[in-house]
């Protein structure tokens, strides 16, 4: 520490700026066989950053959460708005009592996630710019994951009305239940700070915020022909989410290049990469698992692109790492609910 740098050595920060890839390699490659590889952040390759969650901090949202993983911090606010059935140009027809409402949510677009990176969260994303390709593709991935996971029950978003019985009607024929309106949930995500792995943080924030949602009791008033909401907190209801899917992202750091023979390349799979590591890794893998969903399956989404390192065997290993990560998140999310 105290010794003056010699002519050919740099302080770590300068080394990292000048040649980032050798800097990461120098950390990962153990100097002796007894040492294990460590990342520049001090984590081991398979170590995730521990998350912190704070829910209900936004007063004007139906539900909200702030999720922080390392230096990545994201705010998620969920706002419920009423969509009147009469305003829908092509009304949705339910396919019977077995309809679980997931198709309804997709067709009517009742869940609207939007992700904002142009907040000055990192030097790569200037404030006030139009949504970048990254922001748009993250929004799309979140939307499709919301639909695949069937997280929100479409039946809970219906505002139904059953006409009261009148005397002249046949008594044993109950009047039909009509869906007069729907709750549309606007899910807005704002990155305050971005240091790698935006997808995991954003998805966890959505889960935490949806678990925090309280929708006011709403009913159809036939006289005023309008939907009315109760202002009593006691009458408000929470959403019953189905399962708790958790996303885990991995990045592959490899010394492979076209000039080198493929067998000679050294490879590390880094869990939960930070911003600096992400820039040095071309290949990324995102796995979404929800182990308790009906016993069957367990994996909801695998997204891998950018390289050829992770194959059949490696993927199975990453899926089991993602499942371990799931229990870590479950603890944090369940604690927050109390």
């Amino acid at each position: 520490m105290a010794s003056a740098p010699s002519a050919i050595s740099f302080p770590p920060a300068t080394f990292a700026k000048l040649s980032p890839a050798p800097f990461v390699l120098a950390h990962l490659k153990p100097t002796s066989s007894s040492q294990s590889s460590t990342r520049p952040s001090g984590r081991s390759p398979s170590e995730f950053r521990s998350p912190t969650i704070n829910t209900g901090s936004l007063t004007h949202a139906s539900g909200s959460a702030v999720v922080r993983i390392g230096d990545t911090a994201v705010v998620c606010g969920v706002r419920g708005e009423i969509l009147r059935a009469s305003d829908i140009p092509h009304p949705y027809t339910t396919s019977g009592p077995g309809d679980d409402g997931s198709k309804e949510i997709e067709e009517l677009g009742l869940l609207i996630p939007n992700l904002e990176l142009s907040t000055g969260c990192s030097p790569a994303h200037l404030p006030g710019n139009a949504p970048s390709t990254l922001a748009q593709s993250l929004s799309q991935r979140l939307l499709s994951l919301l639909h695949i996971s069937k997280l929100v029950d479409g039946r809970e978003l219906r505002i139904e009305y059953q006409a009261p019985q009148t005397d002249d009607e046949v008594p044993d024929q109950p009047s039909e239940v009509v869906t007069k309106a729907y709750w549309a949930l606007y899910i807005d995500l704002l990155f305050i700070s971005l240091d790698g792995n935006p997808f995991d943080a954003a998805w966890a924030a959505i889960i935490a915020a949806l678990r925090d949602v309280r929708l006011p009791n709403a009913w159809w008033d036939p006289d005023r022909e309008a939907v009315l909401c109760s202002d009593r907190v006691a009458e408000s209801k929470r959403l019953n989410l189905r399962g708790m899917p958790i996303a885990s992202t991995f990045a592959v750091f490899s010394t492979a290049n076209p000039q080198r023979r493929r067998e000679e390349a050294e490879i590390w799979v880094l869990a939960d990469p930070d911003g600096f590591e992400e820039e040095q890794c071309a290949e990324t893998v995102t796995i979404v698992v929800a182990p308790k969903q009906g016993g069957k399956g367990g994996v909801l989404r695998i997204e891998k692109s950018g390289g050829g390192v992770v194959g059949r065997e490696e993927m199975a290993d990453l899926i089991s790492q993602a499942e371990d990560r799931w229990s870590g998140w479950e603890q944090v999310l369940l604690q927050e609910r109390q």
Partner: protein
Amino acid sequence: MTIPTATLSHLHRADGSATYSQGGYTVVAGVNGPVEVQRRDELPEEAAIEVNVRPAVGVGSPKERQLESIIHSTLRHVVLTRNHPRTLIQVTLQVVSTPEDESLLRSTHSLSILPSLLQASILALLSASIPLSATFNAALISLSPSGSLSLNPPSKALADASSVHVFAFSSHGDLVVSESSGCFSVSDWERAHDEARKVCIHGPETETDGAMEVEGEGAQTNLQSFVEKVVAERVEKERYWKDST
């Protein structure tokens, strides 16, 4: 399984081009490069790659941006970008037609078109003679709720499927793209992976049999042999003036 068709180098103003159609999707790809790059996109040590996906109808949406980012990172992996530093390789993919019954699919469903886009982009890069470290081939697999696999399924089967998988394998045999969505287990994924691998790269047995014995109906088209055949035909056509003398 539907038989893919492809045409190479049919656009005269682009450096390389290809049309690829399979399963009702037709994609025209154009490649320009290496060309001059805008200052802000310039990379000092390698070529920048730009991918534009244009839908059949309307303007691009976040769905196209997501497809673009998958294709971009895949092309970054196979193109030898360090051979052309401070240049741009521009890949434009125009979807020309989609299956008639695509409306059965969910509006957010974007995986079914990905294999055609990937296949068209690699053919166009070959046509533009961009130096590549490998080629790749992509396949779409769906798993029905009963657990049966189908390769390049029609839209109806995709809408009912419990999970949908897209795999792309490089010619070295590496898995370069894997996009799966739905509800599935590790063994489901592995079965789909093995099936896709059979279609995307030559097994040792197909190489000994010679390239194309798959003209008969019901026979599986090996995509790697298919790409080789398309390129070989084109090369033969372009060398016709030389060989006939």
